[in-house]
């Protein structure tokens, strides 16, 4: 970490998920000054919420640790957490950026001992677990948070709880009078890596996400699988906390649909195939647990097809070629009943399952139009490469619906483009 003053040879990276962190590190390791801005209290983004990622099925926290060590070692990278971009003015090679930093109420003396969380009584919904459970209002977002530093929720400031937290801290880390601050920086190029949000499942009315307890999203299943997640790593039905044994995955929930997201979100097919292996991981081989995947067509590209072949060989995973028409609820058991037509043979079905998982599509967290006026975006709001964008480059899921692998490639590409811009700035200054 450095305290060098940002100049117009600095690269600003917005968003510290896998794409932003990658772009920032690639640029910093090439010798460029980088300012990395993250809205939440920790880096990590969506990937940090995943239990495993495909196709190697390893834990994302492992890769995150590598990136965190790279960040620790990088002398040219400055990180702002709880910070958002307020305004960007200027042009390629010469941007003035205003960054608003929300108070964390905890300074760098924090050792993450957790004494403040023990002292505080108030609880808030846990954003890391998609609000599925609660966490103390003095909290660390998740075990691998970076920076390893607690944060106080603004709702307790001015209450007794805040005082209790301050008194509990032996290191003088809690500063209750911390205030919102604005920082003005210069930047030569901007990499926009604000990632994605799951599509609002309640908008897909026939699937009843807002009406039926046992209809959940794929991201919620990821959190359930995590041993430190809301269910302690068990797949429990929200209606009665019973272990779900018959699980249905509904593909293209929101994606490839003119009524919702017109694009293919690319990750959902592999995500459901991946999650089907969770079921065999959780339940013994002779159990009656089964998975059924309802799909229009399975889109696994390139070498990912091997993964699909492996899942297809599993007898406990059934594939039904059909976009589910609607879901109803069996009121007595709380089971979900999926209705539709199997287009291979035109068989009508009304299939009862314990749990329905919507393989939810992704939409950009910040639409291209909101990044800045004149930033080119496609119909879905993903940033498009365009000469009129100046030196603002989209990376990762801000630019396209991508899996982790391709998001990292996209981030590296964006870093290279940004480096070329600031190299141009340096050359001009040297020549003049």
């Amino acid at each position, binding site marked *: 970490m450095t305290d060098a003053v940002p100049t117009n040879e600095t690269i600003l990276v917005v968003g510290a998920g896998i794409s932003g962190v990658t772009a920032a590190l690639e640029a910093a390791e090439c010798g460029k000054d980088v300012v990395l801005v993250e809205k939440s209290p920790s880096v990590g983004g969506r990937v940090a919420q995943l239990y495993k990622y495909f196709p190697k099925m390893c834990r994302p926290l492992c890769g995150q640790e590598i990136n965190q060590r790279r960040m620790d070692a990088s002398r040219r990278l400055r990180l702002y957490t709880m910070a958002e971009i307020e305004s960007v003015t200027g042009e390629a090679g010469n941007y003035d950026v205003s960054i608003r930093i929300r108070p964390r109420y905890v300074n760098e003396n924090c050792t993450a001992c957790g004494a403040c969380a023990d002292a505080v009584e108030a609880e808030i919904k846990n954003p890391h677990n998609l609000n599925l459970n609660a966490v103390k209002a003095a909290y660390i977002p998740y075990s691998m948070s970076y920076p390893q530093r607690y944060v106080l929720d603004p709702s307790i400031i001015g209450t007794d709880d805040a005082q209790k937290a301050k008194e509990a801290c032996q290191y003088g880390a809690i500063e209750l009078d911390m205030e919102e601050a604005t920082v003005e920086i210069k930047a030569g190029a901007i990499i926009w890596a604000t990632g994605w949000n799951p599509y609002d499942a309640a908008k897909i009315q026939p699937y009843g996400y807002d009406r039926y307890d046992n209809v959940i999203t794929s991201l919620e299943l990821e959190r359930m699988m995590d041993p430190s997640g809301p269910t302690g790593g068990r797949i429990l039905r929200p209606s009665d906390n019973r272990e779900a044994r018959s699980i249905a995955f509904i593909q293209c929930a929101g994606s490839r649909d003119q009524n919702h997201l017109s694009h293919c979100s690319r990750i959902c097919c592999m995500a459901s195939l991946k999650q089907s292996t969770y079921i065999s991981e959780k339940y013994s081989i002779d159990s009656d647990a089964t998975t059924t995947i309802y799909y229009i067509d399975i889109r696994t590209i390139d070498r990912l097809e091997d993964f699909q072949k492996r899942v297809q060989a599993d007898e406990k995973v059934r594939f039904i070629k*059909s*976009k589910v028409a609607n879901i109803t609820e069996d009121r007595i058991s709380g089971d979900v009943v999926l*209705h539709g*037509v199997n287009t291979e043979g*035109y068989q009508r079905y009304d299939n009862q399952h314990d749990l329905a998982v919507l393989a939810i599509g992704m939409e950009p967290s910040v639409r291209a139009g909101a990044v800045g006026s004149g930033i080119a975006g496609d119909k879905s709001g993903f940033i498009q490469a365009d000469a009129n964008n100046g030196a603002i480059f989209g990376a990762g899921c801000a630019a396209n619906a991508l899996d982790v692998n391709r998001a990292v490639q996209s981030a590296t590409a964006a870093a290279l483009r940004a480096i070329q811009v600031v190299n141009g700035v340096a050359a001009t200054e040297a020549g003049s």
Partner: protein
Amino acid sequence: MNDNNTAMIDKYRNSFLREVEDNVEQGEWVKMCMQCGVCSGSCPFGPHWEHPPQELFMMIRAGKRDAVLGTESMWMCTSCYNCVVRCPREIPITHIMHGLANYAHRLGLAPKVNPTRRFAKIFWDNISKNGRVNETSLSIKLYFMDGYSAGVKRAVEMANTGLGMFRTKRLNPLALISYKGIENPKQLQSMLKKAREIEGRRKGYPG
């Protein structure tokens, strides 16, 4: 079978999809179907169709001309629009179903005894005669569609409903004797005739 049918077979040969695109209302959408099946699953009459919409679209693309135009399936559509609102490609399925039914009728391939087709014909004759629907004569024609005794039976079954409608002035028995439609129905009829001629010329129907 009629002359229109022979002319269309001559014109399109094996390309039934093109025939549908050129002649059926909204037929150009058929190629957009991605066979997800959400229309078939959403149809309240679904279990009673021989071929649900997405199967019909596949049959059109596969060139199954006789099977498509001769089926009763699209005559089952009640225009509830469930399929249209759920279709991920925004295909106007309901319109295509009616378009297919109408086209099959024009070619003389529609199933002769299909009740929807017969009702549609009674309705059309009724409305084109006066320019407005004469509901009294329409109901009587509908009741006696299957012969005199079936008509009497149906009328007796519905007697209470009919009386109720009469009492609330929803049904006027005098309309049987004199019904005033629009001012000059002859003009409407000549317009319809002209429109039919133009359509026939454009699409190449001899009859």
